[in-house]
């Protein structure tokens, strides 16, 4: 197991390194001149040139990339073009809000989606199963930005139940939780539907397996069979999908954060890209990539926890 973790960590590092290089180069592909944007259209050529040199933008691109990577290894993500404050400070301020959002919506998806899937699979083709199926597919098809806007309009604006603009403060957990409710739901809805369908399908397949027949033939209770013998097997593919789905979730987080004006990583990315603020954009995207790699690592680990067959193969 230790060897496996080591192997995975090495691979994760390689992926991160490649992502970094790619990002650093990609930032230069965004159209527009950051210096022009920063100084405004009336800035003199001379002044622009000075700023450009100061920021290292005159260096050839490979040198800039190398500088970025070297800086990164020293914990330096560069400085924001506009405010000149370290990008790492901006990210550390934004990150907790995004993590809270991701964890809350993922938790919501798991806690609601999986039981819905089990309920459907327990009585396939019943009216309940059909209704849940219809609802799940509907949830999957609604894009996050649509559900976010609808939720905002309905609960915060129309019914005026909860204020959902901004993120609130961590010093007030209850208030923060309330603020989080709508954005997290908006982000979770697709996943609830998706998980419900996924769990239903894999559970139905598992319930047809020979070992379920064995469990029945040996008089195990239906409850034990469904929730223990079948579900643990059915969760294996679900976890794999969740790991990859993290990227999807982070993508959705951009919309949700912008719509609910949460000062998270998504908002930061959105803002920096619209302002051609390379250092901030690539720093933030890099952290998002890191989150994604981390989520996959965790998914892989839990996958191995759930499926002992993989454990033996690897060792």
């Amino acid at each position: 197991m230790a060897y496996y973790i080591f192997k995975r960590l090495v691979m994760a590092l390689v992926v991160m390194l490649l992502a970094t290089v790619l990002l650093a180069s990609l930032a230069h592909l965004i159209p527009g001149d950051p210096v022009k944007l920063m100084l405004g259209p009336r800035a003199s050529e001379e002044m622009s040139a000075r700023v450009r040199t100061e920021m290292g933008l005159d260096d050839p691109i490979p040198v800039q990339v190398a500088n970025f990577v070297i800086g990164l290894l020293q914990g330096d993500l560069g400085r924001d073009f506009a405010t000149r404050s370290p990008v790492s400070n901006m990210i550390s301020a934004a990150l907790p809000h995004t993590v809270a959002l991701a964890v809350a919506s993922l938790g919501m998806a798991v806690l609601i989606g999986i039981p819905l899937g089990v309920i459907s699979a327990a009585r396939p083709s019943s009216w309940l199963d059909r209704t849940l199926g219809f609802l799940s597919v509907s949830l999957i098809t609604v894009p996050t930005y649509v559900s976010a806007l609808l939720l905002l309009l309905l609960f915060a604006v129309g019914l005026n139940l909860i204020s959902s603009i901004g993120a609130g403060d961590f010093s007030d957990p209850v208030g923060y939780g309330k603020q989080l409710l709508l954005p997290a739901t908006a982000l979770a809805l697709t996943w609830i539907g998706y998980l419900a369908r996924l769990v239903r399908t894999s559970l139905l397949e598992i319930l047809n397996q020979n070992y379920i027949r064995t469990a029945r033939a040996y008089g195990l209770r239906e409850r034990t069979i469904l929730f223990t013998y079948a579900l643990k097997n059915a969760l294996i593919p679900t976890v794999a999908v969740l790991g990859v789905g993290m990227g999807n979730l982070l993508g959705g987080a951009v919309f949700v954060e912008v719509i609910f004006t949460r000062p998270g990583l998504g908002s930061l990315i959105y803002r920096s890209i619209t302002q051609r603020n390379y250092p901030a954009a690539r720093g933030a995207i890099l952290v998002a990539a890191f989150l994604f790699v981390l989520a996959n690592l965790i998914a892989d680990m839990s996958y191995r926890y759930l499926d002992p067959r993989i454990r033996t193969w690897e060792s």
Partner: protein
Amino acid sequence: MDSVLQVQGLDVVYHSHAGPLKALHDVTFEVKPGEIVGLVGESGCGKSTVASALLQLLPPNGEVTAGEVTFRGKNLRTLDARSLRRMRGTEIAMIFQDPTTSLNPVFTVGRQLRDIRLAHAGSLQGGQQDLHRQIVEVLERVGIPDAEERIDQFPHEFSGGMRQRIMIAMALMSKPGLLIADEPTSSLDVTLEAQIIELIRRLRYEYDTSLLFISHDLGVIAQLCDRVAVMYAGRVVEQDDVFSIFEHPRHPYTQALLASVPLRRNRGQRLMAVPGRVPSLLDLPRGCKFVARCSFAHPVCEQREPGFFGTNGRGVRCHMYDPALAYDASFNVSAVSRPSEDKDHRLATLGAEEPPVLLEVRDLSTHFSEDRNLVECLLRRPIQAVRAVNNVSLKIRRGETLGLVGESGCGKTTLARTVLGLLPATAGQILYNGRDMTSIPGAEFRRLRSRIQMIFQDPYSGLSPRLTVSYLLTEPYIIHRVPQAERYTVGELLSMVGLSEELANKYPHELSGGQARRVGVARALCLHPDFLIADEPTSGLDVSVAASVLNLLKDLADRLDLTYLIITHNLNLVGYVADRVAVMYLGRIVELGTTDQIFDSPAHPYTMALLSAVSEPDPHQRGETRRLLLKGEIPSAKNPPLGCCFVSRCTQRRDECHATMPGLQEIEPGHLVACRDWEDVQRGSLIE
């Protein structure tokens, strides 16, 4: 009431989109205390449905529509769900066919055994400690070594044979009155099959349980059962004690079934192949269900279904035995025209001139190296080679049939694939007509390669499901760019393998197993090959269908002058079909000789063990033939024992055996063996 289980007039229907499938009709039999009753029949005859129906474990679309199931005086059909659940696994326990899929992969063996007990005992008497001890004990009794340590392992950490032992432990834990075993040995090798049969035989006494043993394998039934019920199309067509069934089968179907088993003693003869196929359950004939395939059918057989004539657990469902009709019932299928074609005349001519060697394999090795991922390459982790085929030398003469036998994992299929060029040879030569196929240029290889064809193991997976039979049979010509004039037409090919031309536009899934296998044979014949490799040619086929495929292979050999390499684990098949036999173990040939040499005077302990493990379809042979049980299972080719490859399982190993692998030595003309003590083996002085 002296029977443990009594089944009376059981009817089962499966509701399907196409209409009701009458899976069982009027099934009546009983199991007496301590008795082993065999339920035998081909696939689709309803054997497994009987097993599921007893404990009401039918799939949701299945329904018991009539009949009684009485277990120790209790009517199981009227029992409520709760009491029924309580009986499952405690009073009636089941063992299933495939232990690999029948155990839950994500829970430890101990946990699965524990959960069964917990499901039945509201609170544990004696506590966890006591239960743990009981589980270890039952695992030890079914022959799991180191049960105490292995209890916390997962099913995949056990070998196939061990998994089946765990299933048996599961069944015996509660000392059930009745054990239902549904094809418990069908997915196991011969040697493991023999081990499991012995185990069941022993445990029946130790646990004082009765057994309902379901199998399609007449050999296993003959070895184990006291009484036998033969099933056909959802009916019990004959029931009797095991000796009567095998010696004086009365129903035409039973007779045909027994006559279709390939055995060494009917070498050279055509096998009895039951014509036609089992009728569809959707559209059963009005009269006797066997009428269309019966050689003795009378008009009455078409008109009404025969009753069951007989009493006390013996009888026949056939009009011939109806006392009211008074037919002459002294018929026997095997007496009906079975032209004893003389294969030996072919052999005789072979012996006279010693035909040329068609294929020679010289010191061939095929090793697989494990895939390493990026990190492992960077860390320079050593590659572990799996020596699937190790230094094998073989000669096959034109017109000959060589049987290659061995347990699964011994490298038989790898050898075949290497000969075909589907796998690269690590070392050695493959000479076809004297040309070394491993070193010739591509164009010549392609030309030679078309002379050697393979019939693949699974009848269906060798045929692309998206292509029609007609295209499948033309494809080889397209690949090899064969001019139109040299091609067989699809019709010719189909008629060569005994299929009608109507099948040309069908897709593989529309074919029966036997038909698909025949299409596979036809595809191999397209390019006018001289040499055919058949990998388990009868696997996945019912006895009667397998017989007709074997007959076909034999006819083709005579007509087209073919040479065969037949790969199988079925020794009865080899004894029937092969001229010479090669016995393979862990990638090496350990013995090679004519079929008579191998069967009559085996010289390698492994061959001896294999032969002793064969389940002969003859109840008289049980107990008589001393069962030299091969202990344990074949070691992994990744990690073979040092010295002789067989040393870890040999009963008469000496110190030298741990040091080096003995080479093949010729002990009589044409009989080669790789064992130092072959003389002791032949003398029969094997240490038990």
